[in-house]
């Protein structure tokens, strides 16, 4: 005969003891009372540069803000609170109390850093937003490449723009053949945001050759300059 608890639980309804108030996770519409940064925000960073993934947290209640790399298996904890967790010292947290931000900063960005990152607040259950990091490769481009012909005596002007860059380069080096151009006489280099202009007055044949524009953390660009004598190119 089966042992039955006829009297005990026959009509009892079983309710969970702790009524956990569920903090709603972010809906796909991005509206949230916890985060001021929208869910699924996408940021870009260039290889070798610094990436900053934003996460502004409004309501807090003494929790901890952490960053987790989500697109890998298993997910990897990067930072917890103000300090890094992972031993890779490229990761850190930038936080200013009055800004309420807990941004993830990744230095010396690599292509493998591209992916999905989770900014999580330690409520129960946890609330988070997801930020996507795209990694671009900055590359230089010289207008007029691959060959440029100038007349002797005229001004040689090379304009180098940097494409797909997310930050102003620390430096832009110019090379003439193998030699770096450094305060040479008659040469002026100006930099403006992501453009570097090399100007050379009174070009002559010695100025012919291969010019390289080499910005920091970018693929360099080349151009072949041909300075033509006054006699050349007359019969065209």
């Amino acid at each position, binding site marked *: 005969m089966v042992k*039955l608890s006829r009297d005990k639980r026959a009509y009892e309804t079983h309710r969970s003891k702790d009524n956990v108030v569920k903090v709603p996770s972010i809906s796909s519409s991005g509206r949230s009372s916890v985060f001021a940064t929208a869910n699924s925000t996408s940021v870009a960073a260039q290889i070798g540069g610094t990436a900053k993934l934003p996460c502004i947290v409004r309501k807090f209640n003494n*929790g901890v803000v952490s960053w987790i790399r989500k697109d890998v298996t298993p*997910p990897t*904890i990067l930072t917890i609170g103000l300090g890094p*967790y*992972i031993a890779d010292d490229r990761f850190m947290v930038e936080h200013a109390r009055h800004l309420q931000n807990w941004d993830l900063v990744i230095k010396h960005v690599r292509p493998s850093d591209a992916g999905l990152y989770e900014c999580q607040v*330690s409520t*129960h259950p*946890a609330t988070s937003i997801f930020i996507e990091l795209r990694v671009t490769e900055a590359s230089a481009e010289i207008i007029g490449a691959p060959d440029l012909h100038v007349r002797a005596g005229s001004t040689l002007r090379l304009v180098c723009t940097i494409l797909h860059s997310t930050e102003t380069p620390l430096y832009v080096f110019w090379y003439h053949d193998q030699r770096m151009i450094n305060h040479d006489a008659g040469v002026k280099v100006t930099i403006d945001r992501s453009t570097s202009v090399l100007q050379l007055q009174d070009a002559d044949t010695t100025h012919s050759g291969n010019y390289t524009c080499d910005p920091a953390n970018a693929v360099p660009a080349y151009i072949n300059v041909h300075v033509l004598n006054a006699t050349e190119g007359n019969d065209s």
Partner: protein
Amino acid sequence: MGFSIYGDDDSSSLTAAGRRRLLKKNLEAEVAMDNPERPRLRNLYREVWLEIMAIVGTDLLFRRTRVQRLTGDKQTETEDPPFYVLGVMEHPEVVKLIIRQFAVASLHSGEIHMVVEEPEFTDIIENITVAAGRNVKFACSVKNLGTYKVAWMHFEQSAILTVHNHVITRNPRISVTHDKHRTWFLHISNVQEEDKGRYMCQINTVTAKTQFGYLHVVVPPNIDDSLSSSDVIVREGANETLTCKATGSPQPSVKWKRDDNSKITINKTLTVSEWEGETLELTRISRLDMGAYLCIASNGVPPTVSKRIKVSVDFPPMLWIPHQLVGAPLAYSVTLECFTEAHPSSLNYWTREDGQMIHESRKYHAENTIGTPAYKTHMRLTINNIQLNDYGTYKCVAKNPRGETDGTIRLYSSKYQSNLNEIDKSEQKSTDGEGKSVSYGHIVPNGVDSSSGNLNCQLSLWILPIILFNALR
């Protein structure tokens, strides 16, 4: 992170092993002096690392001739015997070496290979199955932890629970302890069903190391009253489905039994002692199906639960008269009987042919006895001191909300003086040619038990007395 140092040499007064021991001892002593805690690792400066790494590759080799002494700005190659390491680093690839001249002459020669050991798991995490409400503890065992940290995370919820000995989550049921940094325990108290899933133990090495353990939560069964049947009243002949919805983890199975352990009639051809399934379908319900039914939910996790459902089968009254013709002499007493079955219980009374209800008095005494099951009633009317006007027709009436019925008993004068003042219902009387028999009590073969449900047999018995009566006339 731990480190081991071993030397290998060909021209020293000490044996290789001896040198190893000596070197290790001194190294530890030096580090301990510098740092009050157990040998710890310091931060490394990239420049130094690059320099050293340039020299040695993946292993750090301190060749006497090649290691450079780093004192202030000047870097000089030296043939002085060896240097020992003051500190090592937190990062397996980066090493900072603060090198000082070592005083022990016997260690002049040889190469010192330094191998950095990363932390590792020493055991798997055991899966746990637990009943809701209890406490559990997951264990993550590591070695060479050094200054690395162990974190616990819930994979499905994607929530960081603990890091080192701090609890990060606001879940009050989570806590963490460790055994000398070797085994890290995640404690979950009052486990709930939402806690189930994979738990991750992660070490923050550059390429993080991770291990998993699974938590199964079992919940004892529970019957949802709002989705299950309650007591029902069914008309005889109708169909009724009883349902019991049960929840629990794992999903419980439901079986049905009758309260009194009698068999359940599923249909004409099938009767079972128990039935499995969420629903129990009773077709063409008969009064025999009436009673309490139990649905029992079980899933291997105690306690098992049950629900008692009372099934009432209603039907209009049925009457059955064992002796429709009763004879008795004057001044004697006689008892008339009727058997009824009705549900709900019927109102039972006697009348004379005019329909006038017979009341309790010195002449008349009526008794109703309830049988088994309770829908059966045995009606008896005792008539005392029979007079001429007592002969005639009597009716027994049964009424209930489902209908009513009645039957007639004819009392006639029997000349024979018999000492019978009661008809014995179970006695078989034969028809005597002399007509001596007082009654035609052709009996119901099985007494008053109608559980065989066979009315046909009784019907023929009713006819018999009527035929005989006519014959008498």
